[in-house]
């Protein structure tokens, strides 16, 4: 038996040796395949007939250097719109989800409203909601500041996204097992207290990862507000594109979004993994 690898009391176990070997192999394969794919792109793409023109109009260093600071400045507006929309969406979405769970007959209209609301705003493309609200409501002839495209663009985003978020909250609330409610009610907690102190805290914890996903998505859709006027980053990129007759500003705008959304999605992944670890399930290879 002593000639078997890894059976010594002090050395690594057979399993550890095997995993080490596997790990080394995976790394070699991953590096090789990446080199091949990237190499093919680097070699083949410049051989296409239009590469020269594409490089000049999309990857123009001078235009990039000249426009990027202005884009970054305009991006602050995107961040601001996101910053005031996100909390409104979370609160309004939660209220809608709670309204859908109401069982009191007198409040039936509320339940009906919440159901119709989510149906409508989940069904209409966000871009249409923005156009309809953003052009329609200021068309009523309201005075400043009530005709601001920032305001109505933001309202449109809140309307659309709260419908998605309400569904996420509702799924979370429904995922809390009935036995939790039974335990709370058996202690004499009312249905409202049970929701507030027992069901909601668990539901919210469970839906943090999907909620973060919606927030990343919102972060990008803020750019749609440019369609109704505000000069945020996408609009600014369009202006610069026309001015320089060059598409590089769009690339700069994309870069700004990526700089923000990549860390955000990493956080989401991290949260999801942590949750998976907590519930005890391990990945199957």
């Amino acid at each position: 038996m002593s000639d078997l690898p890894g059976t010594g009391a002090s050395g690594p176990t057979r399993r550890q040796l095997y995993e080490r070997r596997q790990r080394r192999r995976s790394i070699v394969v991953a590096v090789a395949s990446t080199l091949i794919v990237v190499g093919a792109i680097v070699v083949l793409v410049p051989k296409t007939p239009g590469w020269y023109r594409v490089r000049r109009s999309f990857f123009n260093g001078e235009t990039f250097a000249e426009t990027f600071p202005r884009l970054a400045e305009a991006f602050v507006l995107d961040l601001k719109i996101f910053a005031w929309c996100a909390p409104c969406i979370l609160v309004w979405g939660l209220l809608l989800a709670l309204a859908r769970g109401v069982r009191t007959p007198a409040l039936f209209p509320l339940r009906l409203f919440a159901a119709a609301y989510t149906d409508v705003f989940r069904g209409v493309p966000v871009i249409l909601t923005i156009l309809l609200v953003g052009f329609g409501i200021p068309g009523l002839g309201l005075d400043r500041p009530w005709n601001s495209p920032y305001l109505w663009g933001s309202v449109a985003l809140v309307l659309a996204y709260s419908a998605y978020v309400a569904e996420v909250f509702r799924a979370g609330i429904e995922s809390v097992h009935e036995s939790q409610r039974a335990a709370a009610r058996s202690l004499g907690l009312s249905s409202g207290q049970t929701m507030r102190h027992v069901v909601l805290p668990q539901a919210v914890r469970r839906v943090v990862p999907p909620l973060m996903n919606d927030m990343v998505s919102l972060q990008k859709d803020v750019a749609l507000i440019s369609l109704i006027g505000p000069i945020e980053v996408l609009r600014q990129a369009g202006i610069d594109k026309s001015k320089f007759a060059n598409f590089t500003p769009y690339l700069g705008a994309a870069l700004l979004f990526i700089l923000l959304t990549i860390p955000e999605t990493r956080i989401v992944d991290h949260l999801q993994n942590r949750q998976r670890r907590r519930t005890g399930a391990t990945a199957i290879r």
Partner: protein
Amino acid sequence: MTPHKLSLVSVRKSFGERRVLADVSIDVASSEVIAFIGSSGSGKSTLLRCVNLLEPVDDGAILLDGIDISDPGLDPDPIRRRIGMVFQSFNLFPHLSVLDNVALAPHRVGRSNRSDARDRARDLLARFGLADKTSAYPDQLSGGQQQRVAIARSLAMDPEVMLLDEITSALDPELVGEVLDVVRELKDQGMTMLLATHEMAFAREIADRVCFLHEGSILECASPDRLFGNPREERTRQFLQRVVDSGRM
């Protein structure tokens, strides 16, 4: 008439077409301990859930201190405060610490302030040997510890009646004892209890009366010695024989 703590009068309950309780009647005196035995699906759990108003009864009445608590028009919340329930699968609140599991209801429902509720919870937990677990979360405890927390949580509302629904069924055999010790302590303090159980030895030891449920009816109720030693009903005898054969008694 002797004042009964709890009375069930011709209680019926169906889930759709399936009749779960068919005309169940029983009077329970104050400080009496009743054990319900019977095979799975005989209606033991449903009976306890009905007493706690977690399931509305279809017909019949449940009287607590002579007052009909099964009246559909009544607000069930104040009544539930007087009746504690402990579940087979503990049903602790996983997002709250052990201390807050116990203190939640007294604080939110009982209107005692937070620190009083917590002091009280700490005392209760200490009584059940859980003084060092107050800041742990339910998932960090063994099944036996979790069930003792669940009992403490229920007792924190000072219930007049306790309903114990197969509270040891989900436990490893070596953890059953610590939970049953707690139930013994409750009996010594004169708590009125209804328990659904598969632990025949325990039912025999602790119950004043044992009732055999079969297909939603109480076939017989008697002192443990009489019911286990000399069952009158053929079905009771068959059930007990099956329990003996499976090595659980």
